[in-house]
C-alpha cells in the first residue's frame, strides 16, 4: 500500500471507516501509569474490559509508580492485563510510562490515565485512524466529571452495552476546553500546521509505536509538560495529529490544570519552551539561547578555505535570528597540528576553523552530520563562501513558517549547476522519508507533504564572501546630550562650521583632480543606450 501523504497537518486525505463496520488487524498496548487511587483504577480497567476492540488485539500495561500498599489488578479487567512496578529512585510519571513502553508489544501505544473511564468504542475510534497511516498521533475527547462514581460492575455493564454516555451527567461535566477551542480555530487541527503537536496529551492520546520508538521515550527530566515535549519531538519525526471526537472518555475528577492552572503554567513556562522550539510566543527574547535551537545552520568546511567558512559562519552568527546553532562539518579528529611550524600544518584551513569557534557556545563541530536535525525544527545548509545578510535567515524562516514550506532553496550562483543554500523543515523531511517511494527524490515527497519554494539569493540579502561586509559591533547609542539645550546648540554650531571647512577642502581637491584628468580625450557622443532585451 502506498503511504498516504498528509500535507502539513491536513489529514482530510484519510477517510476512516464507520465505527463497528470494519475489520481491525493492528495490536494496541494501553499504558496506564498509576499512583494510588485503586478505586479509580478499578473503573478504568472495567471500562477497558468492555471495549468493542477485539480483545486478542488489545493488551493493558499498568505501572504502579510506588503506591503503598501496592496496587493490585481487579477482577474486572481485560484478558491481557499486566501490572508492573517502578523501582525506588526512578519514579515519576514520565519514567513510569517509559517502563510500560519498554515492555509494550502493540503496533500502537495508547496512553491512558488511571482515572479515565472510556466509552465502549474509544479504543476502536483511535485504532481506525492508525490503520490508515503509520505516522499518526490520535487524541480523544475527554470530559471531566466530579460526581460520585458507580461501582466497577456497573461501569463494565454500561460500557459493554455501549451506554458509556449514561454513566455520568453530560451537562454537569466539563470538556477539555483548550482542545475544543483549538479544534474550532483549526478545523479540527487540519489547519494547525506547526502547533498541532500540543494535542499529544498522555491522558487520552495514542501513537504509532514504531514512530514513538524512533522518536524516543518521554523526557524524565521534565516533571510536567513531558507529553507536550514528546508531541513536539514526534512532529519532528514526521507525525501528523488527528483529533477524534468519537474517542470519548470520562475523567474522574478535574485535571491538575483545572485545579491549579496558574501555578502549573508558571512552572511549565520555565521548563518546556527550552526544549520546544516552536513555542515562539514564549521565546521572545532577542538574544537568548535554548537547549533546542530554532535553526541549525550546517556549514561543511571540508575543502573550503578558512576565509570562506569564516565569512559564512560570522555572517550567520551576526544575524538578527539569534536562536540558532551552527554545526561545522569536517574531519576534526584527524587534524594534526605541526607543533614547530603550525602555519605549515596540513589541513591548515580546517585547523584554523576548528580553533576559531571552539569556545563559542553556538558553534559545534561534527564529523558526520546526522540525517535529521531533530529535535531542531529547521536546518539551513549553507555552502561556505556565501553570507546571509543580517536579516536573511530570520525572513526566510518566517516565510517557511508562514507558508509551511518544507524546503526553501536559495539560488546563490550558477556555473553548470546552481549553487544553493537549503532551508529544510525537519518534520517535513522526516515525513517525506516515511512516505517516499523507493528511488523517489526526497524533495519530491517534501513537495507533497509540505511544499517547496525557490528564492533568489541576491534579493534575499545573500552575498559572496568577497562582497560581504565584516560584521562589526554596533555603535552604542550616543549618550543623551547633557547640560542645557543652549550648550547643545553651541556644540552643533561648531560641528557645522567644522563640516563646512571640510567640504571646502574636499571641493578644492576635487577641482584639482578634475583639472589633471581633463587631458584631451575622445568625447563620447550623448547617444542613448539601446534598451536591454527583456
Amino acid at each position, binding site marked *: 500500500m502506498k503511504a498516504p501523504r498528509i500535507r502539513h497537518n491536513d489529514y482530510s486525505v484519510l477517510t476512516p471507516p464507520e465505527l463497528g463496520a470494519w475489520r481491525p488487524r493492528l495490536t494496541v498496548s494501553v499504558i496506564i501509569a498509576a499512583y494510588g487511587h485503586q478505586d479509580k483504577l478499578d473503573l478504568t480497567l472495567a471500562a477497558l474490559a468492555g471495549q468493542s476492540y477485539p480483545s486478542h488485539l488489545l493488551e493493558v500495561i499498568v505501572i504502579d509508580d510506588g503506591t503503598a500498599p501496592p496496587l493490585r489488578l481487579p477482577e474486572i479487567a481485560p484478558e491481557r492485563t499486566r501490572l508492573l512496578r517502578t523501582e525506588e529512585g526512578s519514579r515519576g510519571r514520565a519514567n513510569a510510562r517509559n517502563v510500560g513502553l519498554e515492555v509494550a508489544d502493540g503496533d500502537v501505544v495508547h496512553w491512558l490515565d488511571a482515572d479515565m473511564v472510556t466509552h465502549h468504542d474509544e479504543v476502536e475510534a483511535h485504532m481506525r485512524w492508525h490503520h490508515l497511516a503509520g505516522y499518526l498521533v490520535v487524541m480523544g475527547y475527554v470530559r471531566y466529571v466530579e460526581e460520585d462514581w458507580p461501582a466497577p460492575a456497573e461501569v463494565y455493564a454500561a460500557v459493554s452495552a455501549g451506554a458509556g454516555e449514561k454513566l455520568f451527567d453530560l451537562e454537569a461535566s466539563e470538556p477539555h476546553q483548550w482542545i475544543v477551542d483549538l479544534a474550532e480555530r483549526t478545523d479540527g487541527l487540519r489547519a494547525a500546521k506547526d502547533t498541532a503537536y500540543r494535542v499529544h496529551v498522555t491522558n487520552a492520546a495514542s501513537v504509532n509505536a514504531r514512530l514513538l520508538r524512533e522518536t524516543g521515550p518521554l523526557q524524565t527530566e521534565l516533571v510536567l509538560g513531558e507529553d507536550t515535549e514528546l508531541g513536539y519531538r514526534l512532529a519532528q519525526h514526521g507525525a501528523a495529529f488527528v483529533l477524534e471526537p468519537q474517542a470519548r472518555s470520562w475523567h474522574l475528577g478535574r485535571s491538575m490544570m483545572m485545579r491549579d492552572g496558574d501555578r502549573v503554567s508558571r512552572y511549565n513556562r520555565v521548563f518546556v519552551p527550552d526544549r520546544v522550539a516552536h513555542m515562539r510566543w514564549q521565546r521572545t527574547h532577542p538574544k537568548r539561547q535554548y537547549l533546542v535551537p530554532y535553526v541549525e545552520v550546517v556549514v561543511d568546511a571540508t575543502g573550503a578555505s578558512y576565509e570562506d567558512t569564516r565569512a559564512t559562519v560570522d555572517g550567520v552568527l551576526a544575524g538578527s535570528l539569534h536562536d540558532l546553532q551552527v554545526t561545522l562539518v569536517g574531519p576534526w579528529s584527524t587534524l594534526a597540528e605541526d607543533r614547530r611550524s603550525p602555519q605549515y600544518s596540513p589541513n591548515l584551513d580546517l585547523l584554523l576553523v576548528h580553533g576559531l569557534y571552539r569556545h563559542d557556545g553556538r558553534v559545534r563541530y561534527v564529523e558526520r552530520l546526522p540525517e535529521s536535525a531533530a529535535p531542531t525544527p529547521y536546518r539551513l545548509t549553507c555552502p561556505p563562501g556565501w553570507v546571509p545578510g543580517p536579516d536573511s535567515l530570520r525572513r526566510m524562516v518566517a516565510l517557511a513558517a508562514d507558508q509551511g514550506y518544507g524546503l526553501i*532553496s536559495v*539560488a*546563490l*550562483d*550558477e556555473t*553548470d*549547476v*546552481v549553487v*544553493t543554500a537549503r532551508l529544510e523543515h525537519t518534520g517535513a523531511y522526516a515525513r517525506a522519508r516515511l512516505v517516499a517511494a523507493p528511488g523517489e527524490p526526497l*524533495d*519530491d515527497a517534501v*513537495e507533497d507533504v509540505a511544499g*517547496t*519554494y*525557490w*528564492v*533568489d*539569493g*541576491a*534579493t534575499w540579502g545573500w552575498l559572496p564572501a568577497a562582497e560581504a561586509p565584516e560584521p562589526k559591533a554596533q555603535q552604542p547609542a550616543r549618550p543623551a546630550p547633557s547640560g542645557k539645550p543652549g550648550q547643545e546648540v553651541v556644540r552643533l554650531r561648531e560641528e557645522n562650521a567644522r563640516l563646512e571647512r571640510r567640504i571646502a577642502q574636499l571641493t578644492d581637491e576635487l577641482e584639482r583632480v578634475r583639472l589633471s584628468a581633463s587631458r584631451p580625450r575622445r568625447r563620447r557622443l550623448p547617444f542613448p543606450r*539601446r*534598451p536591454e*532585451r*527583456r
Partner: protein
Amino acid sequence: MTAKALRPPGDLLFVKAGAKVAAACAGLEDPDEVVAALLGPASVHAVDIERVSAGPWPVPDPAGVALLARTPTDLRRLVSLRGALPSAVRVMVAILETPSWFDTPQVVMSRGVGQRVLRECRVHRLGASGWLITTRFSKEQPAGDVAAAITRGMTGFHLNAHPLPAVALGDPALADWWPGDPDASCGGAPEKSGVPSAELGLRLPDAEWPDRRVPVLARPPWEHATWTAIGAPGGYERLARLDPGQVPPVDERSVNPRGFLRTPAKGIGDIVLAGGRWTARLDGRDLVAFPESGLVTDTDVDRLRRLRALRLSWRPAHTGPIAAARVVAGLAAAGVPLIAPSPPPAWATATLGEDLLSLLAREDADVADDLRREELSVRMRRHALRAHGTTARWTAFAAAAGLPVPGPPTISVVMCTRRGDLVAFALGQIARQRGVELEVVLALHGVPAGDPDVAAAVSAFDRPLTVVEAPAEMPFGAVLNAAVARASGAYVTKWDDDDWYGPDHLADLLLARGYSGADLVGAASEFFYLEQINVTIRRRWTSETMSDHVAGGTFLIARETLAALGGFRPIPRSVDIELFQSLLRAGGCIYRTHGLGFMARRAARGKHTWQEPVGYFLHRAKDQWRGFRPSRLMEHRP
C-alpha cells in the same frame, strides 16, 4: 451619467443658438439629457439609431450633425449607417463612456480627400472617461465618414475592412449585424449605375428587397424575439427555429479580450434580472445593466474586468432568448469568466451551441485559482470569437449563399537553429499546431542539412518545409532574413527551437491579430521552465494589451510589413527588440495576447540566448511550481 458630468467645455461653440442640428443616438439611456447638455442652445432633432428610417433625413440641410454614442461599440454601430446619416460642414461625435485602455480619439479621414477639407478639429475630455470631438469642414461631409474616421483610430487597423463580400443592410435597425463598416450600403434599393451595391443583403422579414441580383437573408429586429412576443400567437414557432445564426454577432473589433485582468481584485458577481433586464451585480451594487437588445459593449466589459467571474442563472432570461444569448456570447468573446451552475435551457443550447456552453464553469471553485480562471477565459473567448464574431457569422452567411469566401491565410514559421538534435523536438511542436495553414522555413545555422538528426526530423514532418543553410559565422538576424526571403505565407512568425508551444499557439495569434488589429502580435513571456532546478515560474506581465514588446519566440507579423521595415537587423543578438523598436517608430503597434500557450526553456547558462541567472527569474516570478508545469492549454503529455 449626470448632466453636470456631461457639461462640454465653456468655449465650445458647435453651432449658433437656434441652428438646426440632426442628432443620431446610439445606446443612450437618456438621450434628452445628453442632447440638452451638449447641444443646449441649438434646435435639435434627435433620433435613436434603432428608430432611424432608411429614407431621407427628416431635417433637411442641418447646420450640424451630432453622433452621440454611449460607448465606442455604440459608435461602431452608427458607422454602418453612413448611408442613412446626413452630411454637414460641422459634425460632432460624442462617446460618453470609454474603457480604461481607450486611446485619445483622433480623426483619420481619407488622405487627400476628406482629411484635406478638415478645417478644425477639437478633442475634449467629457466626464470621467468620455470624449467629445467637434469638426468643421470646408465642404459638407457625410457624418458617417467622421464616425468611421474616429473608429478607425480606435484600434490598430490601418485598413478598417473585413475580408468578406460587401454587405447591404435593408434597414438601419439591422446595423448591429454588421457594425463598423462605412462601406455597407443601407436601404436595399438597386444602384442606378447597374453595379450592385453589395454581394449579400440582410433585410427585415417583411421588407421588400428590390435588387434581385443580390442574395438576401431576413432577420427580425430584436423586439420580435422578446419573451412577450414569443408568448403571443405564432411566437412559439420562432422559439423552435432558433440557431446561432439568429443571434446578432459580437463586434469583435471592440468586444474582445483586451484589458483582461489575470488577478481580479473583486469576487464573483451575479447576473440578475432587474427592471426586466439582465444586470451584473456585485455585493448589492449594479455594475452593468445590459440593454434590452442584449448588446455587450467594450465599456461594459471593462467594468466587469475586476470581477473574478460572473454567475449566471438562465432563468429569468433577460428580455428574450436571442438577447440573452447575445449577452452570453458577448461576455464569452470578451473572456469574462462565466459560471453557469444549472444546466442550460433548450433555447440557450440552440442559440449558443453546446460547444460553447460546455466550456462555461459549473461552480465557483472552477475559477478560484487565477491560472484555472484564465484558462477558462481563453477557452471561452476562442470559441465565442470563432462561433459568434462578426467575421465568423458573415463567413457562414456568405458560404450558405454560395458566395466565395477567402481561405485562411498561410503562416510561414521561421525557425533558426544551431542544434540539429533539437530539430525533431521543434518540428514536433509545429506539427501539432491546429486551425492554421502553415509552412516551415528551417534555417540551419552552421548545421549541415545532411545531419542525420535533421534529415530524420525533416522527413518525418508532413507539412510544407523549406531548408535554408547558413554558415555558423553569419549573424542571427541575417540568417533570419535569409529564411524570410524563402517564405511565401501572408504572415511570418518566429519560432524558438527549444521552447514549448501549445497546439493553439498560432491560431491564438491570428485571432488576436483579428480583434486587436495590431501590426505585430505575440504572446506574453510569462512561463519559464528553469531546467537546472526543475521549477516552472510565471512572470507578472500583463497580457491582452497594446505594448512595446512581446516574447521573442512568439511574434507574428505580416510578411509585407516585415519587408517594409527592412527585415531583421543583421546582428547576432537582440534582433527581436530591435524589430519592435523599428515597428513602433514607424507608426505600427504591438499587441500582447495571453501567455498560456508558450513556455520558454531556460537551460544552463551559455547554452541559451538568455543570459540572466536563475535568480533573475525567481525574483520576477509571481508564481512558481516544482517540476514542468505548463498551463493546461499547452496540452502537454509527459
